[in-house]
């Protein structure tokens, strides 16, 4: 089997347009990479939120990045075969979210209980005494919180 790590590495150059510290690979939206016999590269992506207006932009960025490589063709598709979940975000991705000032999504097993949003760790001071202000924020994937310890409002990346 061909080594595809250079393609995954190249895709790490493509960042989330709204969170430029996080690559699409670390965000977990790239679900498969392959190269066929005719040297056409095939990439499958899964949307974070179905209504996310940035998904088409991300797809185009992936196409553009792959076109700079030595392939005879580029085929990038988006489907729900593997549904995106915040558990797909890598450790590197979680660290990058925090760098951007967003609380990383709470990791969970089984069924997600949204009550976990009531005590998200503050990305600014690390305190857990926080209050959920709204499960909806400036983008579909963000929630708004308030830290009772440091007295700052902050945003979180939603667990899904």
């Amino acid at each position: 089997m061909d080594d595809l790590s250079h393609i995954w590495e190249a895709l790490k150059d493509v960042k989330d347009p709204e969170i430029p510290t996080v690559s699409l690979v670390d965000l977990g939206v790239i679900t498969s990479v392959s190269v066929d016999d005719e040297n056409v590269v095939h990439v499958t992506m899964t949307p974070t939120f179905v209504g996310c207006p940035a998904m088409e932009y991300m797809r185009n960025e992936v196409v553009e990045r792959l076109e700079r490589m030595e392939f005879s063709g580029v085929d990038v598709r988006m489907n729900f075969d593997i549904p995106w979940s915040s558990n797909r975000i890598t450790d590197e991705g979680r660290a990058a979210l925090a760098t951007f000032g967003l609380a990383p999504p709470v990791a969970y097993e089984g069924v997600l209980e949204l009550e976990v949003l009531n005590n998200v760790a503050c990305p600014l001071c690390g305190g857990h005494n926080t209050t959920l202000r709204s499960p909806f924020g400036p983008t579909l994937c963000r929630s708004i919180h308030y830290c009772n310890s440091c007295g700052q409002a902050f945003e979180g990346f939603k667990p899904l």
Partner: protein
Amino acid sequence: MSNDAAVKDLLFRMADDDLIIAHRNSEWTGLGPIMEEDIAFSSIAQDKLGHSLALYTLLQGLGEAEPDTTAFTRDEAQFRCCHLVEYPIGGYDFSLMRHFLFDMADMLRFEMLESSSFEPLAKLAAKVRGEIKYHVFHAATWVEQLGAKGNEESHARMQSSLNQVYPLALGIFEPSQYEAELAAAGIFAGEAALQEKWAAAVAPILERSNLRIPSVADPSPAYGGRRGYHTEHLQPMLTEMTEVFRIDPTASW
């Protein structure tokens, strides 16, 4: 696939509900009573629009026109949405109660569809259910807040909205001519099964919110939408929603 007509009918109901409620929710953009609610209704609108696009895309796969054409060029009688989603936003209390009762049904419907034998819909359902969970969480939090933890006025307004919205919400579950076929084929267990789950799910939350479910005398409340008979509110909304598209169908921005 031999059940095409039945599947299409189900998809049109769901897609049209999502498109119309998305448009109504978007009417709160800039008008929300507090900024967080302005953002919440706008975000939910964006989610619903995405869900309707995904559903229209499934319809395209079954031979219907591409999504924009389906969404923007049909006339009122071709829509299969329920009456509940058509009403103007009214006051925040009305929109909140509609949001609560509609989204609970929306979430439970997709939950049921996760095991649908129509695989593209099952995959979509597995994806969007988690998103709609946020909608229900948001709605239930505010219904309880204003019903049980607010003041006399907020309670009275929520009760009055419930009295108005509940009979309309029952129209979500208007049975189709394909109920038996959908159930037999393992595509969807049916509107009656959904209504039962919905009633069991909303009751405890309304009770915690000190709100009484009104008795509904009419055995077929707010039916008609699923057969193309709509309230007087739908056509003016469609006219407004499709205005730009009709001026220039090829416009992009």
